[in-house]
């Protein structure tokens, strides 16, 4: 350090330099702007549009690829020879599930209590009926962060807003001290702090929700700790430890990278699914039903599709 007079001057210059870096920002070869690696306050800069690029939302745990998001027994009676079931059959290869090595750390297991393990399997067996994602419900923390939709972080000095394309959901991370809200919410009450270059976010006050399409879940007693650590300017490691004595025998951790959307014109566009799911949720109570076959409030799906197999290149 160079003394009492120059130190603040240097600091001012440094801040000014950062400010200039932020406002003028550099360019990549393709001409788009590059965000500064640090904020004016000297912390890692998480501002921007981000998205998970993995299969965590299908199943946090390691899983094989399968023919359909919903399958049924095939003509052969083997479990590994199941075929797509009616709800996704017409989607062909777009209706299947990609494989993953899983994002659960350690032995890859989620330490459910025996009762909770039963419920998790039951959830999986009734995925279409029960997954809140399909109903466009607020996805909850942490699932919102690895849904296959972009989200945007607006990082200020005292707070961060995280705005999600899915369902217009949002969460606030308080770096300052605020009173705890009087009721639980899907996204919970999040308090953040810096641990070196890692943003550590402590969330309680959750309602409990699903963690993926495989039926993994937690309850309103969950305590979720997220750690956001920069890997490069355009990638961060996102690590989540969940403690919930109601369903888990011990805390467990998932970890995955999240990636910055690098398009020059990247911006958050709405996925307004509240409107999109009206048929799914209310279709049986229409006066004139659009789906031909309802039995009570269950959709009975008759699939009509036109399959033409032609040699490649033939019109």
């Amino acid at each position, binding site marked *: 350090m160079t003394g009492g007079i120059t130190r603040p001057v240097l600091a001012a210059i440094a*801040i000014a330099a*950062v*400010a200039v870096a*932020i*406002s003028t920002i550099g360019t990549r070869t393709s001409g788009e702007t590059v*965000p500064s690696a640090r*904020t*004016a*306050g000297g912390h890692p800069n998480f*501002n*921007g549009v981000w998205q998970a690029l993995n299969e965590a939302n299908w199943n946090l745990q390691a899983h094989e690829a399968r023919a359909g998001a919903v399958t049924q027994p095939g003509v052969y009676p083997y479990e590994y020879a199941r075929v797509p079931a009616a709800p996704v059959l017409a989607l062909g290869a777009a209706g299947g599930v990609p494989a993953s090595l899983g994002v659960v750390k350690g032995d890859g297991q989620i330490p459910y209590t025996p009762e909770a393990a039963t419920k998790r399997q039951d959830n999986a067996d009734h995925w279409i009926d029960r997954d*809140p994602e399909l*109903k*466009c*419900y*607020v996805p909850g923390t942490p699932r919102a962060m690895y849904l296959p939709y972009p989200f*945007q*972080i*607006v*990082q*200020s*000095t*005292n*707070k*961060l*807003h995280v*705005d999600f394309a899915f*369902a*217009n*959901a*949002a969460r*606030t991370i*308080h770096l*300052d*001290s*605020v*009173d705890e*809200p009087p009721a639980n*919410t*899907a*996204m919970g009450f999040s308090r953040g702090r810096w641990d070196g270059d890692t943003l550590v976010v402590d969330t309680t006050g959750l309602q409990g929700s699903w963690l993926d399409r495989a039926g993994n879940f937690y309850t309103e007693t969950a305590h979720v700790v997220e750690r956001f650590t920069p890997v490069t300017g355009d990638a961060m490691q996102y690590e989540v430890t969940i403690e919930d004595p109601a369903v888990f025998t011990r805390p467990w951790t998932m970890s995955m990278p999240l990636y910055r959307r690098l398009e020059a*014109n990247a*911006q*958050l*566009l*709405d996925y*307004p699914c*509240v*409107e999109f799911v*009206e048929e799914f*949720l*209310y279709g049986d*109570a*229409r*006066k*004139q039903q659009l789906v031909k076959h309802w039995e009570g409030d269950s959709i009975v799906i008759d699939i009509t599709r036109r399959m033409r197999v032609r040699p490649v290149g033939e019109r």
Partner: protein
Amino acid sequence: MARRSIALLGAAALVAAAIVAGAAGPLRAGGAPLKTAWGDPDLQGIWSQKYQIPLQRPPRDAGKASLTPDEVRQRETQRADQAANAPKRGDRIAPRGTLEDLTGAYDTTFEADPIDTSRPIGPRTSLIVDPPDGRIPTLTPAVQKRMRDMREFMLALMQSVDACKRSQDIACFGVTPGPVSPRRNEAPPHYLAAQIMGDRVINRADGPEDFGLGERCLAGNLPSFGVQQIVQSPGAVSILYEGWQRMIPITSAPHIPSQIRQWHGDARGHWEGNTLVVDVSNFTAKTDYQGARENLHLIERFTRVDGDNLEYVVTMDDSTTWERPWTVNVEMARQDAKANAIYDEPRCHDGNIALKDMLIGARMDDKAYAEGRGPDPATMCYLLCGTGNPEYARQRQEGRGGGAGPAAERGAGGRANGNHR
């Protein structure tokens, strides 16, 4: 009907949250720093309307843009008297078990008190500052026609309602009793986009689209004068309103392609001195603000006046809707940051069992009629029938029309749409 009452619970919770969140924070000695760490003007905090000021200038204040301190005091006293005499939350307005009781029970128990006293009477007589008469400019002939068409459709579906043959129910205003209209089997001439929280627009419940945007959990659109939490970064400003959010990129890039339409439009922000200027376009035809739909174009200006005050000025610019642009100026007060009193989660939909229940109820009515056990649904009232007491209805209407805040905002939107009452 009882189903209506259930329907509005979610809406009432939001309104209640707005009221709780309404109190302004204390003045901070010396004020807050007005620049962010990176040098932009600092607009951050939770902000809510400072005064109760009607959107449009009431006829009694014609020619007078502001009130003297004496007039403000006088109106405060007047309002306090009215509030003291108005039905209170939870008051029963009709004999127990009657139709009026069933519908009215919701209104007084869950909705805001008819006379809103949650914030002081403002020194201005309208939020509208331009045109100088404080009134929304004349609607274009095309939009007037759209509203007439919608109103005719609404009336056609009401003409066979029994309640309109025997009472002065506010839902029956303008209805000429008649036979069941063949239009009951038609789609409405335009999308039912009126933003009245919880209020049905047409007397039919054939599917979710027959309901109001509030009942479908699709309300909450721009411009909003409600409680808001602003958080900034060098390249973006995020605003959480009550139950919805919007992202404002700070950029000189052009708007997204015109074929992409969004509920909250497409925002482009830039700084002009200490003011955040936001240009919003690309709205959908499914929203409606005072008659404007997909062609709505907003120019918003957010200016931090001092530590505890924010000025929000928004110009509605849509020559397909109004004969000239018009501008609203809303004075916002900063709330206590530590109390953090804002409901910022879009959870209306998650708890919306009411919409399903109302649809199921309507199907039960259909079935009962088909089996000769009940009245023709075309004679039943699925709107706000049965408030019975005309005095209560009048006060309720005045309370909404004269107030400022979410309920008044939506009420005003509804009337301008011509779809309701």
